[in-house]
């Protein structure tokens, strides 16, 4: 389990990283904290010709809170975000979900943007981005664009990022309303069997579910009473297309979606 050979570039300016991506496209990969990519390299599921390390670019290591949005740069480690003093006030859902993201020993190096770039269907940060309706800030040598979370995730570990683009930052709308998060995993910090996030939206609640479909799924629920909410959650659970695997059966996953979903929706609508 050793990576295949690659060139390693330590970018000193963002333009250098963008230029390498422009020239080498899909043969080059950005490495930030490496806590997802290194495992892929070790298992040779990824075999880039060039790795571009962006962790020494101070302009990417910033967290900004302005105009109702929290923007997290590509070099911000998960541990730094978790320790950001404004997190609990401004981005409560991330404060609830981050302790479930890997372990202290991986959050110390892994970045928030890296987890979103990796787009693992059971990962917490893509789920939070979807639940809050955040945006991914993409940049190439030619252009900058912002993509809404719902248009960014394209399937299991697949996104709509072009080969010459890197994620410069992600932004989350600041929390205005009540939110809740819960996850079931075999061991705290392991991949979620089911992870759910709920956010109050006007009179109803939005529920986001990870670990079941091939990307985080979002559904808005109006304020429903007892049986009607259970029926709506049951339909949602079936529509996610859960599959049996070594970790859990599809039926168990649907059960978790129904039970956790009901608890969280009730919690945010209280």
């Amino acid at each position: 389990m050793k990576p295949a050979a690659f060139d390693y570039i330590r970018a000193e300016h963002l333009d250098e990283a963008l230029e390498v991506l422009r020239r080498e496209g899909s043969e080059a990969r950005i490495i930030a904290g490496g806590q997802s990519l290194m495992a892929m390299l070790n298992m040779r599921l990824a075999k880039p010709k060039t790795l571009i390390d962006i962790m020494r670019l101070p302009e990417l290591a910033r967290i900004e809170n302005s105009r109702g949005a929290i923007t997290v740069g590509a070099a911000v480690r998960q541990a730094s975000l978790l320790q950001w003093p404004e997190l609990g006030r401004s981005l409560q859902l991330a404060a609830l979900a981050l302790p479930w993201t890997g372990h202290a020993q991986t959050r110390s190096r892994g970045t928030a943007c890296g987890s979103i770039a990796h787009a693992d269907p059971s990962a917490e940060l893509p789920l939070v981005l979807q639940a809050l309706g955040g945006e991914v800030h993409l940049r190439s040598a030619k252009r900058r664009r912002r993509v809404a979370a719902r248009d960014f995730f394209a399937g299991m570990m697949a996104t709509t990022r072009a080969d010459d683009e890197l994620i410069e930052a992600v932004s989350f709308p600041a929390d205005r309303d009540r939110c809740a998060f819960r996850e079931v995993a075999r061991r705290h910090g392991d991949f979620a069997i089911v992870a759910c996030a709920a956010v109050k939206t006007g009179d109803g609640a939005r529920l986001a579910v990870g670990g079941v479909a091939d990307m985080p799924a979002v559904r808005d629920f109006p304020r429903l009473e007892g049986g009607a909410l259970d029926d709506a959650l049951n339909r949602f659970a079936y529509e996610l297309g859960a599959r049996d695997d070594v970790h859990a059966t599809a039926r168990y996953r649907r059960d978790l979606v129904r039970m956790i979903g009901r608890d969280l929706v009730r919690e945010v609508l209280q």
Partner: protein
Amino acid sequence: MSRLQAGQRHSVRFSLNGKPCVGEAEPRLLLTDFLRHEIGATGTHVGCEHGVCGACTVGIDGQPARACLTLAAQIDGCEVRTVEGLAPSAGRLGILQAAFRRNHALQCGFCTAGILMSLDCFLRQHPRPDEAGIRDLLSGHLCRCTGYTPIVRAALEAAVELAGDLSGTKSDA
């Protein structure tokens, strides 16, 4: 911008347990293999090589990190601490190591170096930890021998002793 060519060895300068250190590594070399084969520091163990088991955990700039998910090239200029840095001198155990020995917090010992380094970083930041905090930290490590209970006991005992050490007060704990 520096491009380190594949297949060629490049120098990596870092600090290892407080001492300046330099070694050579190809870009693809993992920090685990760099420490063990290039530097000769074989205290860091290699387990799963995909970040799950925690056996290779070392301290990087004061934070616990998986050496198997880190390239040697990435630690250029960093401060690395490994289990070799815990003992005050040859033949003597550090406080944390002695607590592990007293409490039988290891049997086969394969996971121990990684757990010690996680706890070493953690106890510096949290000198008065509770059991829940230690168990949360240990969720990043697999130990198939002990059932974790003696590890938690050793960590709590070492924390008391280290806190006394830091404040300069004597303690019989």
